[in-house]
């Protein structure tokens, strides 16, 4: 059993419609690298050009925001759930 990454609906277009991806790694950062190694199309949506997680991407380890843990360095173990929380706004016409 690895680490489960929960993919929100707006990003499932980049994971072949999978809502859950199993990854490996010892830290949140490693788990996320493992995720984008599997689904490379996710990369520009999660990371900026400098290789940092984009500011509007929220990552929760189990029910805690990793920003208030040790961010990328937060240790993870098998059975943990990493959830990407999307910014969603609703039905407005796309400009």
């Amino acid at each position, binding site marked *: 059993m690895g680490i489960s990454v929960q993919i929100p609906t707006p990003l499932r277009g980049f994971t072949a419609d999978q809502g859950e991806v199993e990854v490996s790694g010892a830290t949140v950062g490693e788990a996320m690298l493992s995720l984008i190694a599997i689904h490379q199309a996710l990369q520009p949506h999660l990371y900026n050009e400098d290789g940092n997680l984009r500011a509007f991407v929220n990552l929760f380890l189990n029910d805690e925001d990793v920003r208030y843990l040790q961010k990328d360095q937060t240790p993870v173990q098998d059975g943990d759930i990493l959830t990407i929380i999307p910014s*969603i706004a*609703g039905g407005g016409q796309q400009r």
Partner: protein
Amino acid sequence: MTLVLDGSKTALPTLTPAEIRRYSRHLIMPEVGTIGQQKLKAAKVLMIGTGGLGSPLGMYLAAAGVGTLGLVDFDVVDESNLHRQLLYGEADIGRKKIDAATERLNVVNPHINLIQHPVRLDSSNALEIVADYDLVVDGTDNFPTRYLVNDACVLSGKPNVYGSIFRFEGQVSVFWAEHGPCYRCLFPEPPPPGLVPSCAEGGVLGVLPGIIGSLQANEVIKLIIGQGEPLIGRLVLFDALQMKFRELKLRRNPECPVCSENPSQTELIDYEQFCGIPQEPEEASDEIDISPSEVKAMLDRGEKITILDVRNPPEYEICRIEGSTLIPISELEHRLGELDPADFIVAHCHHGPRSTRAVGILRENGFSKVKNLAGGIDAWSAEVDPDIARY
């Protein structure tokens, strides 16, 4: 935490015999009781948006006897609203939502006071409108207004009952800076335009706003009657396909630009700009756009055109331009090899925004002969081929 209702500073309003009859199933519950119902009557709730979320919100809050309900909306009822916006029916198409909603809510409960704000909420009017209410419910449909509603609530010290939906997925929380985090603590920055699809592009399950809006209405009523555990510092995620609720802990960001102890922002800002929405088109549209009739004329002359459809497959199922190539915008950068830079390419989507982005992507990648079909397949149907279904 107690919500101090503006209308209850002196004494709670009494209930009339008709109100006692109407609210009897509330009154006999100890958690509501006569005092709770009087608090509801005293309460002034501002609903931002009377669409998908606003429909159940408005109907439940009106039915529950919230004494003053303010409605903010400037939109008109569109046929495509009706699969989820239960405030409206077929006969309301083309009417101002705020008028149709007021009429409907008056029928639901004639004992309450409905106040219309038929404006687009912006930085110049938000604080003034919010000032008259005890709490705000965010049922908006776009990022700039969500940040605006949040900041106006933080600056006014009002709770903001938040709900948001996309496809099969919903989010609910109560942001109240005096007692917990605000929207900006969770989402410090908006996504750049175009990176997150809207419901207009990605769709939404009609039932979903019914569920999420009802959860918001529940939180509003709990805050007013002062019962239960409000959803402060917690984010509920709902997945309608998996039928799963999850709850995440939210924390105040000690560096939040608006709700921290030393905020860097102490007044409302330009939220369109904050969300990166350009005020002026970056490039003259005639440099990018080509009209449906021009494309039709070129095809009639036998000129070779690659018509590139950048919509999603379900939209392609509804209707398509004969001979077009489907590459959804989200896959375009990885599938450029399927296109020939030597060809004249006309990109289109439903109305134009996605294909405008597609033109940008193609031009950056060495495709020089690329144009955007102005108005998308919708305009193609209107101007060239009425057999193509409009949606």
